[in-house]
């Protein structure tokens, strides 16, 4: 198990629509992400980055090809298996998508409620600890509406990391943030993931954050065009 790499894709092809409207967005994609590796996925709009991310995140059913994510074969996975896999992946979206009626701490604790073995006090303690790690120790009991955009995205980072996922998938996490907050968020994400040894696949257009990557993968027209070997 420990030797298996977290993300392994072979010949993944994916199309939307039926018949004449069928539009192929991924063609024979192969991708490997090693344990602890931080990979940036770039490319123009419509190049298939987001579709690839949703397939790896088990948010969509596979069509063709093979994918093994955190040891789970996706090609023939049932819905329940995909749901179970998702709980082992940390997601960070363009917008924070926090639940507006829960405080920062309760939002983070939601990621822990899916696991047994922790009681409410332990969940809240872990969530508070994680929020301190993203620099929000003074804001744990605030509702998202009372936080700035950068702070909300940091709560989202804490939520993605708190359950110690085996993989983090992020889609343009800096898109809605100014330069300084964006830098702060991705560096936090990188540092925390490094400490947990969690690999990250991050889709971005933002040239300002390329420096956090171990490796940059570019996509165009549904294919991976350039895969430089890991710089580490």
């Amino acid at each position, binding site marked *: 198990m420990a030797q298996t790499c*977290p993300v392994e894709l072979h010949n993944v092809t994916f199309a939307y629509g039926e018949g004449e409207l069928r539009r192929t967005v991924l063609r024979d994609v192969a991708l490997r992400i090693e344990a602890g590796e931080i990979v940036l996925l770039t490319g123009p709009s419509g190049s298939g980055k987001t579709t690839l991310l949703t397939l790896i*995140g088990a948010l969509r059913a596979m069509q063709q090809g093979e994918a093994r994510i955190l040891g789970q074969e996706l090609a023939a996975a049932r819905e329940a298996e995909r749901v179970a896999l998702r709980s082992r992946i940390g997601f960070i*979206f363009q917008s924070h*998508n926090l639940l507006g009626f829960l405080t920062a701490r*309760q939002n983070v604790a939601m990621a822990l*409620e*899916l*696991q047994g073995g922790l009681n409410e006090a332990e969940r809240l*303690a872990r969530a508070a600890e994680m929020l301190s790690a993203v620099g929000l120790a003074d804001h744990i009991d605030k509702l998202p509406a009372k936080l700035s955009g950068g702070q909300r995205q940091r709560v989202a980072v804490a939520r993605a990391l708190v359950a110690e996922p085996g993989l983090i998938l992020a889609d343009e996490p800096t898109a809605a943030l100014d330069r300084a907050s964006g830098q702060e968020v991705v560096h936090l994400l990188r540092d925390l993931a490094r400490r*947990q040894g969690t690999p990250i696949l991050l889709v971005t257009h933002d040239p300002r954050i390329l420096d956090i990557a171990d490796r940059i993968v570019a996509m165009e027209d549904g294919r991976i065009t350039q895969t430089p070997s890991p710089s580490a």
Partner: protein
Amino acid sequence: MNQLLRKPALLAADQGLAIPPTRRGAGPLAALGLAIRLAWRQLKADRARLATAIAGVMFACVLVFMQLGFKGALFDSATNMLAAMRADLFLMHPMTQASFRPERLPRIRAWQALADPDVAHAVPIYLEQATLRNPATGTRRSAQVIGFDASAGAVAFTGLPPLIEALQRPDTLAFDARSRPEFGPVGRLFRDHGPYHLQLGRRDFELVGLVEIGPSFGADGNVVMSETNFRRVFARPPGMADLVALRLTPGADATAVQARLRALLPADVVVLTHAELVRGERAYWENGTPIGFIFLFGSIMGLVVGMVIVYQILFADIAGHLSEYATLKAMGYSNAYLSRVVLGAAVILAVIGFIPGLGLAVFLYDFVAKATFLPLHMPPDRALSVFLMIFAMCFTAGLLAMRKLRDANPADMF
């Protein structure tokens, strides 16, 4: 706690496993509790919407309670006469459907019943309708006349015992003080001036006292007199009675006596307990008339309106938080878990809408009962059955609203 705070891998440089083991889910009961807590937190976040939802459930609740209350009150009053007759057992002709239209049974059955050692008294009861003249205006109105020998004590109308002796005199009667006001101020005149004459049919009677029975569907008022006096007014075959009331010896087992009498008596009588007699009368009015349906229809309308309100609230809650629900799905929450959140919200609304609804209904029952003299009260089984209806109403609304969850697609989140 200390151990917990030190443990997380993000603080230690613990990079052993690239792939963490598959997680063990929370127990089903704990997961349900968490889903309901999430539902409650979401509901209470929007106070205005919560208040609307509670008002909707309360409205349905009160409407159903009032419909059932009026129905119950009408049927209770329909059985007033038989309910007031509190004897231990009754003999009735099997073809009698309702007390206002009795089938006669041979009076000899009463004496046959006395063969059982546990039957202390057997009292034939005679029922007829006759017009009673209003002492104030002189107009006539039809009343139920109940004739029986009161001295045996088998029929226990409230107010009867002190009148037993007076009723044995010729041409005397007792009037039901709870009769409808159309009979005139019979009771008030009696209380002010003592006994006076009343005309029943073409015959003058002396009013010697007041009893309490209550009007029924079949009769607006009641008159009680002795068997002898009854026979002076109505020419009837002497061997036939309309009902027989049996008084048992103290401590006798009514069901055992009932079984013995059934074996003993021929098939032209049925042996009923007091509860069975009242239930049979009530069933006639409930099933043999459209009254029950009218109230049922009103109740259903209340439930439908309540369901639409709850559905709208739950639907709006989901539609307004689609991206949050989709995020939860992306985090590994199953559709079934989110369905439980929606159903949890529905159940919470049922409970917190029912409680004030019940309170308001009890208040209204009291208010309406004082204004209309209808016997409105809140039996616990009615409260329970309305709660179950409201629960089912909210649950159905939740099931309908749940379909909107399918629109929360985590793949659209990126």
